[in-house]
């Protein structure tokens, strides 16, 4: 069966999304177990794929039995071999964690919720696994549409924010589609590898240049890269916690993956860094992105919104890293996809737990939270430390590679931006810790012992949270292995 893993990876969630949908009409209680089973199979096959890639190298799976330029093919190489397990496992953990929230928030609509959830994961996995440029667009739309649906169910402002997201997302996806069209018009192919093969003689063509720019702008829109980020904070903040903790970790990261895929596979580094030579400008844009994300986060008095701005800043990390144009920077960017997915999941799960128990996430609501929810906050500390970049959590190591790349590329601005944002993160998170820790104030001497009333989230929410939190540390400790066995093969040979 293992040769069918690439298909199973996407098909099992798809089919089970349909089954979940039907189950929603028949008996709502079946939805959740089916969804869990489906995502478990995906996770299993993605891990299986990763090991196959490690053993055998690139895997090509022909859908419909048609060989690649004619039909659609899946290419699983080291890059998506790494990203796939992350996507599926993050989705699985969040799914388990979301059970109670969903029951609390949409008692009548669990069926559609899980349907959309599983479909979204299908879309994201498909984006990562596919080797066809147009197929990617379709899957992108699945992920986006379901994402709109999931995000819009939230607070009063959620629909408006989501509609804005929808406008931006549509422009982004259409730009991507247009860029693929430009490539198609000059090459006549839609398969990524095939396009890459046909492109080199056309590097000087204006159409290829425009295709690249348009694709990039489209992808940046989708990932909320700096000047195009305006939709993200509101959309993620006002959504329900189960959805935002799925979408915040995954969507931007998957889009970064798409960007790297575009840069590495379709338009080869030779074109991006030698022919085009705009990477300095992009890195500076990333610098501004990081700085703005940090500063805007500092302004917020609301935990979830603050985190969304951190997401914006993190996007800056990855884009900047990928555009540094050297091995270390790219390693950092790829590593950060993994790490950032995990740490964002961690903090957003914490927000989910807080919302579940306290029904609020403004700073004012967090008073005394360390006493109320010590375990949740414990995980939050780990997640926060990882975002700050404290060793041995994984956030440190991706930052390590990013800074190393910045130094090697002599992009000191980027280095400073990374450090600056880490410092701001320290401020941000310790501000939250302070509020959760001290308020309401005890008397001046602090000797009075307030018996803490524990109101911890249920076990289904805590267990996934701790799995993530521990994996933050484990991934950090095994960074060396990840880099040596996977990430270094991502980067094409001959790349500096």
């Amino acid at each position, binding site marked *: 069966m293992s040769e069918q893993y690439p298909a199973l990876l996407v098909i099992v969630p798809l089919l089970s999304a349909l089954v979940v949908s039907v189950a929603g009409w028949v008996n709502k209680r079946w939805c959740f177990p089916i969804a869990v089973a489906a995502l478990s199979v995906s996770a299993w096959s993605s891990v299986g794929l990763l090991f196959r890639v490690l053993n055998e190298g690139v895997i090509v799976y022909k859908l419909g039995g048609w060989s690649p330029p004619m039909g659609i093919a899946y290419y699983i190489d080291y890059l998506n071999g790494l990203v796939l397990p992350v996507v599926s496992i993050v989705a699985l953990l969040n799914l388990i964690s979301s059970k109670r929230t969903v029951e609390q928030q949409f008692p009548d609509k669990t069926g559609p919720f899980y349907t959309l959830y599983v479909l979204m994961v299908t879309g994201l996995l498909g984006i990562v696994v596919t080797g066809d440029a147009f197929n990617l667009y379709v899957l992108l739309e699945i992920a986006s549409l379901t994402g709109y649906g999931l995000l819009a169910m939230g607070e009063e402002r959620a629909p408006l924010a989501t509609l804005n997201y*929808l406008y931006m997302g549509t422009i982004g996806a259409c730009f991507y*589609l247009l860029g693929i069209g430009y490539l198609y018009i000059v090459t006549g192919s839609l398969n990524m590898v095939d396009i890459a093969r046909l492109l080199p003689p056309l590097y000087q063509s204006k159409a290829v240049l425009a295709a690249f720019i348009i694709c990039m702008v489209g992808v940046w829109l989708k990932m909320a890269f700096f000047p195009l980020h305006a939709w993200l904070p509101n959309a993620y903040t006002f959504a329900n916690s189960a959805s935002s903790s799925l979408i915040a970790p995954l969507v931007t990261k998957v889009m970064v993956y798409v960007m790297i895929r575009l840069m590495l596979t379709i338009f080869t580094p030779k074109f991006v860094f030698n022919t085009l030579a705009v990477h300095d400008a992009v890195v500076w844009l990333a610098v501004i992105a990081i700085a703005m994300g940090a500063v805007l986060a500092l302004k917020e008095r609301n935990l979830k919104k603050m985190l969304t701005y951190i997401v914006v800043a993190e996007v800056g990390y990855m884009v900047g890293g990928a555009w540094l144009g050297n091995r270390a920077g790219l390693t950092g960017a790829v590593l950060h996809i993994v790490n950032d997915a995990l740490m964002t999941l961690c903090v957003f799960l914490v927000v989910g737990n807080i919302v579940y128990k306290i029904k609020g996430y403004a700073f004012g609501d967090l008073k005394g939270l360390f006493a109320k929810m010590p375990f949740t906050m414990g995980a939050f500390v780990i997640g926060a430390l990882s975002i700050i970049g404290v060793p041995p959590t994984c956030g440190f190591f991706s930052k390590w590679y990013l800074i190393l790349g910045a130094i090697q590329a002599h992009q000191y601005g980027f280095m400073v931006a990374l450090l600056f944002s880490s410092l701001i993160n320290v401020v941000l998170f310790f501000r939250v810790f302070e509020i959760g820790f001290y308020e309401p104030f005890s008397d001046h001497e602090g000797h009075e012992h307030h018996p803490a009333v524990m109101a911890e989230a249920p076990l289904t929410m805590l267990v996934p949270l701790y799995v993530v939190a521990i994996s933050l540390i484990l991934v950090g400790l095994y960074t060396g292995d990840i880099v040596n066995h996977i990430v270094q093969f991502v980067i094409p040979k001959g790349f500096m």
Partner: protein
Amino acid sequence: MTDLISMVVAKYNYWIYITLMMIGLYAMIAKNNLVKKIVGMNIFQTAIILFYVSIGVKKGATIPILEHGHGPNAHHVVHAVDYINPLPHVLMLTAIVVGVATLGVALALAIRIYNNYNTLEEDEILAQVREK
């Protein structure tokens, strides 16, 4: 000069697709009404479809459905130059479907927004948001 004119003439489809697309894009950015923006979004999408379909056009070719598909001379040789490139059409079928799906979702969102704020004008909604 003649080059320019011949270029303009030879690719007029592309110019018009760009025009349409820019109309849509401008509407999406600058219009104040949410439904107008959705209309703009659809125009934007159709412009891209126009672009793709324009790629497929081939002078002196017919529609991509084989003549004499079945029947006595079903197995005569098919020449590629006789038929329009079908691939962009396939892609655009998908794109149209995506467009209508997005439209449905966008309208559903607009209705929800209207239920919340009783208006579809973005500035009025934002004013209400700020008041709260």
